[in-house]
């Protein structure tokens, strides 16, 4: 079981330590950790499980904050990692983002949350709904109140009713004047296009996100028109397994508010909505670049927020890039970002320019990978369709809303 959790800032400062068991962990382990991180560079920061001479460390890095957990004994590593991710989620949800200041400013809440979330190294309450009832979220009102009165308690006086109920994820008996439930299909397209311009891999990772504001204890049933296209699924704990196994129907009592009902995968898609064609030709120490972007398969809705990003290869001394549409920026970490926005009707956006190679290098022999991002509102590119949503146990007819959104996930074009 976990013995200690440290929160480290992006400069390696230990912001918080929370000892969990009787075997305390000295914070010198953080010094060791940070020393390693500096000497080994980025690859160390991406290593989730680290065996030091005294402890096993699990690290999860979120927005510059390192969540470090220590143990000395065997335990499922994914449990630790998943828990740290959960902590990061809950904290960023509570504090409206994650950074060094916000954690320091709210360190008491962080302590209180950690104390509720883990007991003796074993996760205790991780359900955000229950946590929110136990420990109040800091908001403008409470902040102002604390300034005026100098006193505010964010610790709940009683135990949330949900801890005892059979649906521990649901706030006990919420009441709403107008009942409403929104179901969003949020899809991310992962695609890999190789040097020859062939689509190597194209799949959709999708989430069914539900925002429910329903009174009482409603029972919802959601069915899809074409569930057979789903390659694999994962569910929120509220989903009952049986109906899905037999009829591919989602039957659940929803948590209150926003949550991820299900995530799914649709594999082997045949085409992408846009194309990106990079061309690199090098000769005599310079390299000409030309990147074209256009619509391949019109999804019927506007594609916006298109950006193309790539990392300049290390052997490039300087780059000069211009585009006929949108803006091109070269960031300090040698990342070049071309933000296009929407594709204009009259012309195909293109970016062109030259790289100057290192002296002695005639040709470019390593090629960058272009990462493309875009967003399409109103379309689920996987083709998944929601058939209907039935609600039971509700006093009055609720408002039901459906939306869809597709954006690029790991959309890569190799050159």
């Amino acid at each position, binding site marked *: 079981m976990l013995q200690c959790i440290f929160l480290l800032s992006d400069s390696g400062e230990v912001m918080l330590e929370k000892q969990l068991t009787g075997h305390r962990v000295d914070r010198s382990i953080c010094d060791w950790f940070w020393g390693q991180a500096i000497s080994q560079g980025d690859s160390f920061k991406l290593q989730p499980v680290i065996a030091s001479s005294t402890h096993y460390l699990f690290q999860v890095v979120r927005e510059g904050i390192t969540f470090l957990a220590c143990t000395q004994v065997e335990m499922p590593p994914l449990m630790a990692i998943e828990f740290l991710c959960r902590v990061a989620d809950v904290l960023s949800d509570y504090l409206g983002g994650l950074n060094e200041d916000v954690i320091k400013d709210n360190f008491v809440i962080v302590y*209180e949350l950690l104390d509720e979330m883990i007991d*003796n190294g074993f996760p205790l309450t991780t359900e955000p709904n229950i946590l929110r009832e136990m420990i109040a979220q800091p908001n403008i009102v409470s902040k102002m109140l604390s300034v005026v009165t100098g006193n505010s*308690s964010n*610790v709940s006086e009683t135990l949330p009713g949900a801890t005892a109920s059979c649906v521990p994820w649901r706030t006990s008996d919420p009441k709403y004047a107008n009942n409403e439930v929104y179901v969003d299909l949020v899809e991310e397209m992962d695609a890999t296009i190789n040097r020859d311009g062939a689509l190597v891999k194209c799949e959709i990772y999708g989430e069914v996100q539900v925002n429910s504001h329903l009174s009482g204890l409603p029972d919802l049933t959601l069915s899809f028109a074409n569930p057979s296209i789903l390659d694999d699924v994962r569910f929120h704990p509220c989903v009952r397994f049986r109906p899905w196994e037999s009829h591919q129907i989602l039957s659940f009592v929803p948590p209150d508010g926003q949550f991820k009902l299900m995530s799914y995968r649709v594999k082997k898609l045949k085409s992408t909505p846009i194309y990106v064609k990079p061309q690199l030709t090098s000769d005599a120490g310079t390299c000409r670049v030309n990147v074209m972007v256009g619509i391949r398969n019109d999804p019927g809705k506007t594609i916006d927020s298109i950006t193309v990003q790539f990392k300049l290869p290390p052997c490039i001394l300087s780059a000069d890039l211009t585009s006929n549409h949108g803006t091109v920026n070269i960031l300090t970490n040698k990342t070049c970002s071309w933000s296009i926005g929407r594709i204009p009707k009259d012309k195909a956006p293109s970016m062109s320019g030259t790289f100057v190679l290192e002296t002695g290098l005639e040709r470019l022999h390593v090629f960058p990978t272009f990462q493309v991002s875009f967003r399409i509102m109103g379309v689920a590119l996987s083709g998944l369709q929601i058939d209907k949503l039935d609600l039971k146990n509700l006093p009055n007819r609720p408002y039901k809303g459906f939306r869809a959104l597709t954006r690029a996930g790991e959309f890569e074009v190799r050159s």
Partner: protein
Amino acid sequence: MFPQFGATAETLSKASSMVFRIGTDAHLYDDPEDVNIAPLLDSKFDSEKCEALKRLLALIAQGFDVSNFFPQVVKNVATQSLEVKKLVYLYLLHYAEKRPNEALLSINCFQKDLGDPNALVRAWALRAMAGIRLHVISSLVLVAVGKCARDPSVYVRKSAANALPKLYDLRLEEHTSAIEEIVGILLNDQSPGVVGAAAAAFASICPSNFSLIERNYRRLCEILPDVEEWGQIILIGILLRFVIARHGLVEESIMFSLHSTKSGESKKNGEATKISNKEDTGYASGNDDFGLGADVSGNIDLELAKMVSRCYIEGPDEYLSQLSYANTGPSELNVAQFTSGKRNDDVKILLQCTSPLLWSHNSAVVLAAAGVHWIMAPRENIKKIVKPLLFLLRSSNASKYVVLCNIQVFAKAMPSLFAPHFEDFFICSSDSYQIKTLKLEILSSIVTESTISFVFKEFQDYIRDPDRRFAADTVAAIGLCSQRLPDMATTCLEGLLALTRQEFLSSDFGSLDGEADVLIQAIMSIQSIIKQDPPSHEKVIIQLIRSLDSVKVPAARAIIIWMVGEYSSLGETIPRTLSTVLKYLAWHFTSEALETKLQILNSIVKVLLCAEGQDIQSFKRVLNYVLELAECDLNYDVRDRARFLRKILSSNLDSQGLEEETNILSPNKDLAYVLSGHIFGGQTKSSSPEPINYRFYLPGSLSQIVLHAAPGYEPLPKPCSLLQVDNVDQGTNGLERARNSDSFNTDETDSLSGSLDEEGASDYGSEHSISGSNVSGGSNETGSASEGDDNTDPLIQISDVGNAFENQHGVSHSGSADLGELISKRALESWLDDQPNSSNTSTSEQSQVRVSTARIFIGDIRHRVKTKSYTLLDPANGNGLKVDYSFSAEVSTISPHLVSVEVFFKNCSSEPMSDILLEDEESNKDSNSADQTLVATDSSLTSHNNVPILVPMEEITYLEPGQTAKRIIQVRFHHHLLPLKLALFYNGNNLPVKLRPDIGYFVKPLPMNIEAFTDKESRLPGMFEYVRSCTFTDHTGELNKDKGDNVVVKDNFLVICQCLALKMLGNANLFLVSVDMPVSTNLDDASGLRLRFSSEILSNSIPCLITITVEGKCNDPLQVSVKVNCEETVFGLNLLNRVVNFLAESSLVPL
């Protein structure tokens, strides 16, 4: 004005500069010490305490030691504000171990909180109390955990489960069984949330105590999907271990390959693989576009699968060490240790209940469930885990790595599983380097004939990746692929050669280190491919040799030069080019790097030894030239190598070497020649598959990621180990075993459930009494009524109905409407001869839960009480003097610390005795040897308050043979458990004797009526209440005796009451307050019978209340649960133990 901004202008400006931070605790974190914390802690305002505590917390967060505030913080534990309480707990838990003495100050507060009506407060108190980890209070914590394990609130029960490992961490040998019992109770809990936490406790406390699992295996399986995700992870592992220990491995599973190869049943083995092959390929061709129908290598890697399963069971370290000294370790597994997954219900249900968990949104749960299927599922069903595992790759980067590490093992042992999904292992640019290498390794182990073209295409892209380390790994992976698929070797070689040509272009300019790695890796891959079949790759070797001029990387050159030496006699072209190549090498020798120089020396010697004909002379000249150069080299290694070679080859190099001469040279030189031939000329063996020495740990374990056994790693239990124990036992003493297990099962569960019920009820009672201030309300009048009736001597008197529960509600005055209900009950009619003067008032809820009860009066039975007597001195030891003693109910008038003991002296010898006296041993010593002052002071210290240890008895001057004498002594025991040493004088002799105390007589009766009793009881809730149960059998003898006589049919209930009361009164100095009797239609059911006793502790007059509740059938042994309410925790617990002991002790002393 705003105290939290601090007084200084500096902090004020700081605060104002950050508008967003207003209202947060920012200033506390930035400057925790800008105000004096100590006075704030003593403030009477919660807000100031709160601020001080937050400052302390900030200091803790920043790594300062603020334990010096401990005493002041502990004081605040009694606060009413939950926020302060929480902050105090946070502080307390951080430092408690450092300051154990001060931490003890908080215990009373926790105990109070444990009785709080707010479940959150109870849970926190328990968490904090267990969290401070002090040995001293472990028994208190154990009691608290035991209580909370029966708490009505799920959250509190969950906290209790979490507290168990904390207790266990203290290494309390004496409590182990009690802790395990509580684990059992919690595992049996109705709420899935509690079961999850209990599973975690089980795993860390008693992971091999499978009897706890066996009892409710099925229920655990069924509840599994509802358990919290974290509990699921642990519970899955526990269930898997249990099934393996109970039933062994599954013969259809991949683990069975171990057995089939091991026992050499080649036929069966072949069959098995054939079947699996068919299934695999069937599946693959059904699902995969590329059709793996023709794939031969798609089946299971049996060798590896065998290793995997052995590693899982024995642990890799043990297994590998076995391998090292004995090629085949003792095969402990046999067919009997396998079970059929299709027929065994336990296996089936486990697989059934874990398969929906593959859809969990917690990746750890998915991996744990996948692990179960990997080990237990029939081979054809394992594919179920593939998609969920691959889906995990879409979660966070950190978990991606861990999942890939596990997939790697699965893919290696059973490549067909993942072969159709090769695309999922294609690399994204966002992957970290570790993930990339893992993916490459997996790809190269699952690649098949039909998919290799796609994979190679992908690899070609990777080689152009800007991360050259990754590109080098890709090149190595190409080598691995072609080793797996020899048919692809030529394609691979072409690609690799093209690469070397490309790469040397860039390396020619010596631009980057990374390029060198790629090149080396490429040459190494080529080398490994050539090794497999050198003759067919002759051209490749020549191409490489030709490229020597352009390859500049020393390591790469060294490998090529090695090939020159190794394959010098291969084919026809190579030998012809040799002399040119060797001259070229010699020419460049001085400009080479170290490793190349060494390799050149080796290769030339090798070539020379293999050479024939006229080349030999030129080769010798070359070698001589190179050796001379080498002997003057700057590097020691090169010089040494050169000298060594010259010595050993002296025969070959001598003069201009006449061959005949060498042949007839001395045997000495001949030997050197043979030796050199062996060293350099030995043919390399055809590369045998490399010995596998991977280490495999259970899927999902930490050890699998770090590749060594982490502390606490346990391999799977030995298959069927649980069953074997059973068999052995049954073989030897089957009958007894059966009986034992029987009684174990029934008794245990009975007592558990019984005490659970009882506990629940009393708990509610105490809670209600806290909230409801009026305790005695309506029962007052009934009480007085019963007093009035006392004189009219019926043995039984209904004075009140309804149990304590209702009394506290004060409902008895409301319920006369229910009169009819009561009278109609025949059970009651048989009891009564006059009208009840009160009514049954059971509410509807009440009647469901408990039977109604009637309060009866069993008259004065004190005169029938027989006190038990103990032997102080045996006549055999005491020359015929027999001394017995028994505790007397009399209360000493001298000091409350004294206990009266009646001592009986009997002369069993034939001669008279004189001067018998019992004295304190210490004072005796004191008088005997006056110089032992030390002892004397000691004894005077112990006997504080000037109370003597023993009030001396009147001396018996003379005792005739057969005569008895009785004396009363008053003794002050040092401790209510430890015996007191006394000295017995008689006939001038001195005998040491030990007087054992009986805690039952450290109390004196405290007369009170039932109202006072319930009132007192309600004031001693929570930690002051302890319950244990036991079995009571005394009454059975009595009842059976009655049956035999058949003269007066006594009432069963009455007999039980009397037995119980007599037993209690006979063993402890108590006052019988009341007897409640169940009124139910079932005359045989004694459940609900309740006796109450009151007493007060002699030394400090603290009241001590005992309630006994009976469960069970009249004629059977009864389950008796004893509850003690007492403020003195330790005393109360000891008294409870004593009561339970003597109740359980079966003594059939006739009345």
